């Protein structure tokens, strides 16, 4: 009530909160625990889970969600959203396909597919940051536009011929690096590197700090001299870059591109980031959270398949986890009186 006491209480709270209490208060701790329990349970319940081939598949699949999830986390930290990531994956994949199918080298396909994706991000960013439209509406529109353009680009053909550099493309997306006798899929390596860079940037750079500031209180950020518009554009370009990377890698992995590429990916990715502790209200989220959230979703999917449970149940599990994660977060915050 009086200033002195609230001060005293605050100090008490600060000092009595040990490491364990801090750990328990983190959503990511619980999700990580769920992932570990799921892995142990699967190892005990099935013989098929812990095989190198299955682990290879699981990690590669979750890497794609994880890569886009890292970009999405950055967007969500600013209080934004990007629904167009799935369609951007298609744009990137189509660009790769068209260039390589025409017999041009992969050294052109990579920058071109990334550039095409960045253009999508730039348009999103400008409409949101400069014109001031709501992110939800802009990216909803872009989701439709980008997918449609991707379809037009495909000319409704299923392409599985990628010219002279086809082998390189397939080995980048579908290949692996053998570490200690275990094959580590390339997309996983890309995700880990990107996660380290993103985590680092979020925590230690000016850019990262500005993201949290914008998500925490955009008006205050503006009045503090944070270049809000530029940062917002950059963040939509960053998520588009992640989607572009995924589109390229996934093309190499699958060896063919269909117009259904990346369909529904946006919701899986948003689910992963929310499970990982990002708040759609902005201001919170971590790179580790995005990765762990993506891992949980993929493990659920894989487990259901291996246990012979209909994949129709997958949505129920993932959805329950989203609601549980957010609800438990809410309850824990109530306990600390905030």
């Amino acid at each position, binding site marked *: 009530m009086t200033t002195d006491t609230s001060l005293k209480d605050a100090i008490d709270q600060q000092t009595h909160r040990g490491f364990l209490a801090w750990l328990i208060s983190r959503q990511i701790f619980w999700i990580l625990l769920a992932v570990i329990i799921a892995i142990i349970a699967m190892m005990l319940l099935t013989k098929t889970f812990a095989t190198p081939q299955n682990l290879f598949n699981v990690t590669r699949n979750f890497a794609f969600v994880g890569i886009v999830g890292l970009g999405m986390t950055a967007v969500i930290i600013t209080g934004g959203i990007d629904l167009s990531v799935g369609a951007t994956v298609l744009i990137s994949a189509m660009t790769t396909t068209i260039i390589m199918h025409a017999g041009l080298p992969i050294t052109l396909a990579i920058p071109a597919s990334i550039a095409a994706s960045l253009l999508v991000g730039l348009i999103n960013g400008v409409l949101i940051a400069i014109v001031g439209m709501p992110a939800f509406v802009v990216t909803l529109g872009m989701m439709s536009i980008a997918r449609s353009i991707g379809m037009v680009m495909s000319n409704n053909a299923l392409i599985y011929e990628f010219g002279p550099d086809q082998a390189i493309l397939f080995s980048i997306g579908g290949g692996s690096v053998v570490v200690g006798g275990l094959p580590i899929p390339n997309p996983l390596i890309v995700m880990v590197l990107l996660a380290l860079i993103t985590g680092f940037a979020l925590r230690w750079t*000016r850019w990262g700090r500005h993201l949290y500031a914008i998500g925490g209180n955009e008006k205050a950020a503006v009045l503090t001299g944070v270049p809000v518009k530029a940062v917002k554009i950059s963040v939509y370009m960053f998520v588009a870059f992640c989607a572009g990377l995924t589109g390229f890698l996934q093309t190499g992995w699958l060896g063919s591109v269909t117009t259904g590429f990346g369909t529904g990916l946006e919701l899986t990715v948003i689910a992963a980031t929310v499970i990982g502790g990002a708040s759609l209200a902005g201001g919170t989220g971590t790179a580790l959270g995005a990765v762990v959230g993506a891992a949980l979703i993929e493990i659920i999917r894989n487990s259901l398949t291996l246990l012979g449970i209909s994949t129709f149940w997958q949505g129920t599990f993932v959805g329950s986890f989203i609601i549980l994660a957010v609800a438990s977060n809410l309850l824990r915050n109530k306990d600390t009186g905030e």
Partner: protein
Amino acid sequence: MLDSRDQEAPARPFLKLSAVRKTYPGVVALAGFDMLVGPGEVIGLVGENGAGKSTLMKILGGVTAPDSGTIEIDGAPYAGLSVGGSMKAGIAFVHQELNLFDNLDVAANVYIGREPRRGGVLNLVDEKQMRADVLPYLKRLGANFAPNTPVAKLSLAQQQMVEIAKALSVNARLVILDEPTSSLPLAETDKLLEVIAGLKAEGIAVIFISHRLHEIERASDRVLVLRDGVLVGELAKAEIDHDRMVKLMIGRDLKVAYAAPKLGKGEVVLAARGIRTAAYPTRDVGLELHAGEILGLAGLVGSGRTELARVLFGVDPLYAGTVTLNGEPVTLRNASDAVERGIFLVPEDRKGEGILLDLPISENISLPDLDAYARSGLVVPALERVQAEQSRAELGIKAPTVTTRTGSLSGGNQQKVVLAKWLAMQPKVLIFDEPTRGIDVGAKAEIYRLMRGLADAGVAVLMISSDMEEVIGVSDRIAVMHEGRISGLLGRAEFSEENVLRLAVGKPLRQAG
């Protein structure tokens, strides 16, 4: 004191509190509080933040029950009130943050949840009846807006009237106004004081809580001063006096509130000429701000003061005109441009625009100048904490650690954090928009001391304020705005409430002699 109260107190008080006590873990919020409120009595309630005012309000509103003591309303005793019971007994609240629905009209706001119905199968809301019903209340309050006006279109004072109309419509016998004038401009404050007088004339009691002692002085029949949960003073009408209230509130004299400038006026630092803003695109406004001075910018809300400040800070577009800094013309396209040049703004809405409540103190301070805390592009938290520790010591920010969440600090300390982030960057020009709104007396004095210290260090300070006491007490010169123009400049010798008010409403100054 007691004698005079006995004479004035009516036969039966509307509200009587006896020995009301409320404790929270580790703190006595109210230590045996007594209060009598007679019908038609206006009681000023003052005290610093944390003195127990809000606890008292929560008890009267039925939100919390007292640990001991009794409450009597119209002679009927209550051990504790419920929210519904308090309303039924005729106690109505008008909170500082109004509880209105912006998207609904006046009548709908007054009758929300108890709308008159047409009956029949559909039992629709009878909007016509509702508007007719609300009209007499608006008339009694001297309102100048129609019942079907959307609340979003009303000024703050008018919105307060809607709240008061709501109180009248439930036959309130006691209206509690919590900081009603803290966000009101001068002229609208007068209007509110008139409304209070009107309530009084109808026999409705008013408890008026405010940090603006001047208004307490004008409105109240009796003043109660709370400190640390104890009633430390009760002043009858004739005894109500600003200095006496302050002394009781903080337990000592507060003479240092307004320090005189050490330096004379220096060079012109910031000059704005022929500025046109979005608020008044056809009016030119200009001013010159000198090093070492505090220039007060007075005027009614809507006179274009905040817009001028926002243009000078680069956040609003400049429609026409030039801004020069130390003689050089500058282009300010956004706040980053201004910040780079040492022009800083302490905004009016501290929580909404000034700080990031969820960030620690240290990160709020470093935010505008992260490069200064970075080594090869990476922010070093240790450097942030060093600066924050220094700011904490310099400004006297009361917080357990510099990594404490800023949102958990008191208003005065939050304002110091806003100030700290700019002071860490060597300001040339510092613009304050309502620097002490909602901040209690003790913290106010500290903010004034800091402002004066800055001016003495050669910073040019522009202070927008609607608080007359503050404008006259703190400024070295006062510029008054009226409808997008500077209507007059006052030197210290010409400072008076009347002069400021006349210029604010666009009248010429009365000639001396």
